[in-house]
Each structure stands twice: as structure tokens, then as C-alpha cells.
């Protein structure tokens, strides 16, 4: 899932300073599951903004609503009236949600209420960890299913570096060394030969470095759109 966390309230207050009628727009998918921007969190943010603006002497009209998925326009259309009525929309979806609202409602001013952090999973309740960097050319098959791009601080393909000690990374004793994990797993599977070969330089053009990425599936496009 996409994992995010709410921006500090002060920063959001700054973003909406000019507006009177504010809509906090939650998203019912990833950011609901990571407790950053679902129905409950949209409610908490709306309440907090109402209280803060009242204390500051300029009470704002802050409401909130949540859609199933901000990143699909069909769901946004269902709350189009609320979006258009607001002076400003604070999207507490991920960065994709914010931009989906912007693209669907170009006339509306939209600001982010979250910092979109990473793609990961909950390793225990209340703890999320990054697992994928969307590098565009997956090598998990070589590394025992443990990603050095997402989990090594230096994205090494021929690790571990000299800073690996007692299973943890040189940058933090809280951070497991990804290459120690890879080594342990391959050893337990009797597959260490997978990492004795030199892994060649990565093709970063498949990653963000190649510019914004796009996937087109002609078989899925609607005929009318495809012919455009």
C-alpha cells in the first residue's frame, strides 16, 4: 500500500490561510489503511482546523467527506458539488489523489494535507516499513525476495557495504541491513550462488530517472479513445 502521514497542522493552516470554506477530502483506500487520510482522519483534521481557526479569531467553515478512491475520477464525480462549493480542497489522499482532484477539477484550488511517504506494509499495528521503490525493473528474484533498492540506504546491488555490523545498517541501529537479510535468506535456501556473480549497473531509465512513466495497454483501451 501507499503509506503517508499527515502534515503538521501549522503547515496545513498556512496552505489554507486565504480560504473560508474548506473541504477536507479523505480517501478510502491506502491512506485509510495506514490511518493517515481516511474518514476518521479527515474528521480529525476538519475538527482540528475548525478549532484552530476559531482560536485564531477567524472561524472557517470546514467540512469533510471521503471517497472510496481519490485516484479514480468516477469516485470524485460523486462529490463534485462539494468540491466545487469549497474555496479550497485539502486532499488527505496520497499525492496521486491530490493530482487526480486537480486534473478533474482544474478550476478548484487543491492542497495536500499529507506527506506521501513510501510504498510498504504494516509490520505490526502502528508500524509501517518501506518495501518497494517502484524502480521499474524488479530484481527480487536474485535477492531472495528482499529489495536492496528500497531497503539498503545506498541502494547497493553488490552489497553489503563495510558499514554492516551485527545485522544493522551503519546509519541506524534500528535499521536492519538489507544485505544481511539477503545473505541470511539465500544461505538458508542454499542459493548464495545468486549473489556471487557481479550484478551489472542498473538501468535507471526504467525508474523515475527516465522521467514520468506511463504504461499503455492497447487491449484494455476503449476503441473510441484508442483511435483518437
Amino acid at each position, binding site marked *: 500500500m501507499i503509506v503517508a502521514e499527515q502534515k*503538521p*497542522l*501549522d503547515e496545513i493552516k498556512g496552505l489554507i490561510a486565504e480560504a473560508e470554506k474548506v473541504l477536507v477530502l479523505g480517501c478510502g483506500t491506502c491512506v485509510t489503511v495506514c490511518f493517515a487520510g481516511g474518514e*476518521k482522519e479527515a*474528521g*480529525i483534521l476538519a*475538527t*482540528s482546523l*475548525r*478549532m*484552530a481557526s*476559531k*482560536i*485564531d*479569531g477567524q*472561524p472557517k467553515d470546514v467540512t469533510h467527506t471521503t471517497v472510496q478512491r481519490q485516484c479514480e475520477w468516477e469516485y470524485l464525480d460523486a462529490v463534485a458539488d462539494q468540491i466545487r462549493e469549497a474555496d479550497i480542497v485539502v486532499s488527505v489522499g496520497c499525492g496521486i489523489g491530490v493530482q487526480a482532484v486537480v486534473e478533474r477539477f482544474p478550476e478548484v484550488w487543491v492542497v495536500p494535507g499529507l506527506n506521501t511517504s513510501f510504498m510498504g506494509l504494516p509490520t505490526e499495528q502502528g508500524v509501517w516499513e518501506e518495501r518497494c521503490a517502484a524502480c521499474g525493473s524488479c530484481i527480487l528474484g536474485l535477492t531472495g525476495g528482499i529489495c536492496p533498492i528500497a531497503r539498503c540506504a545506498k541502494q547497493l546491488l553488490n552489497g553489503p557495504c563495510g558499514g554492516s555490523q551485527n545485522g544493522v545498517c551503519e546509519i541506524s541501529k534500528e535499521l536492519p541491513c538489507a544485505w544481511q537479510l539477503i545473505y541470511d535468506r539465500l544461505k538458508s535456501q542454499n542459493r548464495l550462488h545468486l549473489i556471487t556473480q557481479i550484478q551489472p549497473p542498473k538501468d535507471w531509465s526504467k525508474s523515475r530517472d527516465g522521467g514520468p512513466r506511463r504504461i499503455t495497454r492497447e487491449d484494455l483501451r476503449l476503441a473510441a479513445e484508442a483511435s483518437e
Partner: protein
Amino acid sequence: MQIVAYSCHYCAYAAADLAGVLRLSYPAAIRIVEVPCTGRLDVLEVLHAFEHGADGVMVAGCLEGDCHFQAGNLNARRRVARVKELITAVGLEPERIEMFNLSSAMGRQFADYAVKMTQQTASLGPSPLRAASGRVSRTGAGGDGLGTRREGSGDVGPSTQKTPAAHQERQR
């Protein structure tokens, strides 16, 4: 002054009842809301209490290690800490909410905690959210000077109530 006391059914709520039976007085500002367990405490609900004019919130659960539902009171403690962060960001003092732990036999302690919370809240003055909007719509029973500065001075002595808490108006 108005303080919402989220009280666990298995301990604090019973302790408040016991305080009433024992004729122990505690400040009339306390408005008890019974919860099945403080683990039921909801951050948004607490924020709504503040938004609607509560000057303070006390959360009273079982003694640590004695939760009827094992760890609900420990979860509540974390949520109280979270509410402290949230209301601080909003512009309220974090001391407007506190967590207390007690057993159903501790009627005296309940009254003491109620006084402590009332004094702590009084020292902070009325909630700016209430001051900004004048009187809140939902007033408590008794002439406890809601929205006035009198209690804000720290004088909480004379305004007490002796009725068993269970008979109070419930605010949910």
C-alpha cells in the same frame, strides 16, 4: 466550567457511584460519560468534546494491569497522549486532558482526581473555544457558572455536587 470525564464502566464509573454513596463531594464541573472500557475512547470524539466547549477532559480507567479487557486502559493512555499532541497543534494546552487509573473501590480517589483535574483546568482558564462562542448549547446540571470567569480564578471549592454520578445527565 465543564470537564468531561470518560469513565470506564468497570472501575471509574463505579468509583464515582461509590463516591456518591459515601457522600464525598467532587466538583460539579465534572460531566461523566460512561464508556464500556477506556479502550473504547475515540480521538475524534474527544476532539468534538473540546470543539463543543469542554474546558477539560479526564479519562479514568482501571489500574494498569487490571483492565477488564486486558489492555484497553493502556491503549487509552496512548490515545490521550495523541490527543495532547492534536490539541497542542490546535492551540489548546495539553494539560486540558489527563488520564487517571483507579479501581471500583476507590471512591475517594475518584473524588480527589476530579478535584485535581478541576483545579488544573481552572488554572488554565476557560477554553478559548467556549469563550469565543459564548455559552455552549449543552449545559450541565446545576448553576456551576458555565462560561463565567469565576471558576477560572481557581476557586472550585463552593461549587460541588453530592448526587451519585450515575444519576447525572449523560453526555455521549
